[in-house]
C-alpha cells in the first residue's frame, strides 16, 4: 500500500490523471497504472527482503473468490474465514517444507455474487501473482472464474460450487473437491429410500421446492431424472426467487401437492423463511429433506428457528464427524473464530490443503508444475467423509459423496449411511 502511495506522490498516477484530464481517464489507463503499482508492491514485499536477509521463508500467493459483499455477503464472509483458517493451518505447521518452509499468503477476490465481476477479480489476482485460486460458493460464478483461469493457465481448485458443467468442459486447470449436484440428488434419493425401507414405510411421491438459479434448478432436474431409479416420482416442483419478499404461495403449492416427501434446495436466508412458512402453514410430509440446502444443515439455522427445525433432513456434504483429525480441526476453527464450521465452510477450507499438498509435491511455484501435481493428488489428511481425495480426468474429486443429516434435539446429526452416523434416524417425521 505504501508503495502505491509513494507512486502517487511521485506523480506516477497523478501526472497521468492530469494529462488525461480533458479526455477523462479510460479504464485501460487505470488498469495499467494500478497494475504497475501492484507489481511494485509485490516486488517490495517478496523480492526485497529476501535480498536483504539471506533466505527467509518466501511467500506464496494464493487467491480466493467469494461473494464478500452483495446479497450473499453473509455466506461469502464465512467462506473467507474458512479459507483463512486453511491457510493459517498450513503456515502454523511450517508452511511448504519442500520450498524451505515458504508461507502461504491469501489474497481476497470479491465476486459480489456476480459472474461478470469474477472475471475481473480472477485477472486481478493473476496479475498480483497468485499460483492457484479457490472459490466460489456459487456455480454461476465458478463457471466463468474457472474459464478465465483456463485462459490464464492458473490452477483453480473449486471448493463450493455444485454445477455439473464445471468439470464437464475438458478444462485442464479446473479441479473440484465437492461432489457435483448429480451426486447430491442421487445420494439423497438413495439414502431416503433406504431409510424408508428400513422403517417399513412406503414412499412414492416427492414435491420439490427450489430456488430458481442454476444451483436449485439443476438439483431438481437431477432429482426428477434419478427418482424412477428408486421407485420415486416428482409430480410437483415449485421454483422461487430468493429475492421475493414472500414465499407463502409457493409453500402453499407444496402443501397442496400432499406428497410423501418434500425436497428443498435453496440458500440460507430463503431457507429460514421457507421453513417458517412451512411450519406456520402446517405443511405435513413423512420427511422434509434438503438437497444441498444452504440452511438445513447450518448450525445457525437451529440457532435462529429453534424447535421449528426439529427432524428436518438434508442430503449434503459434511465433515467427517467420526475422524479425530476432523474433530481437532473443527475445534481449532471454533477457537479461532468463535463460530461453528458449517459444511460449506468445510469445503471452503479443504482446497487450501489440497493446493498446499500439490505445491509441496511440485517443489515449485510454477503454475504448470502445480497443475501437474494436482492431477496426481492422493490426499488423505483431509476432513471429509470419503477415501483419499483424487481427481479424475475431468478434475472432479472421484470419491466425493454426501451424507444425510437430521436435526435432532437441536443438534445436526449424521443419520445415514450408518458408517458415518452419529445418531439414529427419525422417520417418518411425527
Amino acid at each position, binding site marked *: 500500500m505504501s508503495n502505491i502511495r509513494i507512486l502517487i506522490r511521485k506523480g506516477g498516477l497523478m501526472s497521468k490523471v492530469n494529462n488525461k484530464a480533458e479526455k477523462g481517464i479510460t479504464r485501460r489507463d487505470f488498469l495499467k497504472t494500478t497494475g504497475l503499482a501492484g507489481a511494485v508492491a509485490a516486488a517490495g514485499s517478496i523480492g526485497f527482503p529476501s535480498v536483504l536477509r539471506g533466505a527467509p521463508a518466501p511467500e506464496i500467493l494464493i487467491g480466493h473468490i467469494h461473494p464478500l*459483499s452483495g446479497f450473499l*455477503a*453473509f455466506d461469502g*464472509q464465512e467462506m473467507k474465514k474458512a479459507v483463512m483458517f486453511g491457510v493459517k493451518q498450513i503456515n502454523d505447521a511450517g508452511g511448504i517444507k519442500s520450498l524451505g518452509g515458504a508461507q502461504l499468503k491469501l489474497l481476497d477476490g470479491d465476486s459480489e455474487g456476480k459472474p461478470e465481476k469474477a472475471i475481473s477479480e480472477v485477472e486481478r489476482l493473476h496479475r498480483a501473482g497468485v499460483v492457484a485460486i479457490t472459490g466460489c460458493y456459487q456455480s454461476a460464478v465458478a463457471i466463468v472464474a474457472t474459464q478465465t483461469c483456463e485462459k490464464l493457465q492458473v490452477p483453480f481448485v473449486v471448493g463450493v460450487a455444485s454445477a455439473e458443467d464445471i468439470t464437464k468442459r475438458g478444462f485442464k486447470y479446473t479441479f473440484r473437491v465437492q461432489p457435483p449436484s448429480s451426486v447430491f440428488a442421487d445420494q439423497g434419493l438413495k439414502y431416503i429410500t433406504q431409510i424408508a425401507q428400513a422403517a417399513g414405510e412406503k414412499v412414492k411421491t416427492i414435491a420439490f421446492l427450489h430456488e430458481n438459479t442454476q444451483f436449485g434448478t439443476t438439483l431438481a432436474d437431477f432429482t426428477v431424472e434419478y427418482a424412477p431409479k428408486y421407485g420415486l416420482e416428482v409430480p410437483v416442483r415449485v421454483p*422461487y426467487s430468493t429475492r421475493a419478499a414472500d414465499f407463502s*404461495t409457493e409453500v402453499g403449492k407444496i402443501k397442496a401437492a400432499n406428497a410423501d416427501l418434500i425436497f428443498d434446495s435453496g440458500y440460507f436466508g430463503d431457507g429460514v423463511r421457507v421453513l417458517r412458512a412451512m411450519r406456520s402453514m*402446517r405443511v405435513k410430509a413423512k420427511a422434509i429433506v434438503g438437497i444441498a440446502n444452504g440452511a438445513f444443515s447450518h448450525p445457525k439455522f437451529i440457532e*435462529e428457528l429453534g424447535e421449528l427445525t426439529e427432524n428436518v433432513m438434508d442430503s449434503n456434504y459434511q465433515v467427517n464427524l467420526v475422524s479425530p483429525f476432523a474433530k481437532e480441526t473443527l475445534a481449532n476453527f471454533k477457537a479461532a473464530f468463535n463460530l461453528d464450521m458449517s459444511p460449506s465452510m468445510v469445503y471452503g477450507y479443504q482446497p487450501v490443503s489440497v493446493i498446499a499438498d500439490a505445491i509441496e509435491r511440485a517443489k515449485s511455484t510454477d503454475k504448470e508444475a502445480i497443475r501437474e501435481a494436482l492431477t496426481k493428488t492422493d490426499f488423505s489428511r483431509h476432513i471429509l467423509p470419503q477415501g483419499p481425495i483424487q481427481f479424475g480426468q475431468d478434475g472432479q474429486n472421484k470419491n466425493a459423496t454426501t451424507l444425510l443429516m437430521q436435526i435432532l434435539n437441536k443438534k445436526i446429526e449424521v443419520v445415514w449411511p450408518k458408517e458415518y452416523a452419529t445418531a439414529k434416524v427419525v422417520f417418518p417425521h411425527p
Partner: protein
Amino acid sequence: MNLNFVLQSLLNGLLIGGVYSLIAIGLTLIFGVMKVINFAHGAVMMLGMYCTYWLFVFLKVNPYLSILLVIPILFIIGAAFQNFLINPIIKAPEHNQLFLTLGVSLFLQNTAVFLWSPDYRVLKTHYANITYYIGDISISLSHLLAFGLAVLFAAILYMILTRTDLGRAIRAASEEPQGAMLMGINIKRIYWISFGIGSACAGVSGAAITTFFPIYPYVGDIFVLTAYVVVVLGGLGSVLGAFVGGLIIGVADSIGAMFLPGAMKSILSFIIFILILLFKPTGLFGR
C-alpha cells in the same frame, strides 16, 4: 388447485401488500413534495430494522413497542439527510439527485456491513411462531400485526395530511411550491419535515417486519423495487394511491405465484405497471 390454497395465497398477498403500502407511502410523500426519487429508501428501511433489532437485543424493548422510538430516530435521520445532502442540490438536474440518493444508499448499506457484518439476524420472539388457523387457512400473528401497523400508520398519516395545518402546508408545498411560499409557508422546513416523515414510514415498515423477516444490510433491496412499482401504480405523490397500490401489488404477486413459476411471479404486477404507464400514466389516483 383447491379453494383453501387460493384463499391462503390471497390472504398472504394482502398482508404483505400492507407492508409494501407503508414503504411506498414514505417514498411517494418524498417524491410528491420534493420531486426527488429517493433510492436510499430501502437502506433507510434497513436502518429501521436494525434499530428495532438492537433495541430488542440490548434493552429488551418489545419489537412493536420499539416503533415509538424508531419513528423519532428515523425522522431525525431523514430530516438530516434532507437538510445536509438533498437541500444543497435541490435545484440541480434530476439525475444528480438520483445519483446522490443512490450514493447514500450504498453508503448506508456498506456502513451497515462494516458495523454489523453481513450476517443474517433473526429477531427471536415468541410472536414469530404464533399462528392462528381458520379451518385449514393459517394466519401468522406477526404478518397480521405488520399489516395492522401499516394500515394504522397510513391512516394516521392520511389524517395528518388532510386535517392539520402541517398537512395542508405539505400538500400546498407539493402542489404549488412558489404559491405556498408566497402564502408564508416555510418551504425548506416543509421539505425536511416531509423527508423525515417519509423516512419514518420506511423505518416503521422495517420495524414491523423484523419479527418474521431476516435482518441484513441489503434487505431493503427486496422491498424497495416493489415500492417503486407501487408508487407509479398509485400515482406519483398520491398517498391514497400508494396505499391501494401496495395492496394490489401484494395480491397480484400472490396470484402470479399461483399460476407462474419462480421469478415469473412478479410478471403480473409488472404487466399492471406497464399498462398503467401506457394508458394512465398519472397512476390510479394521480392527477
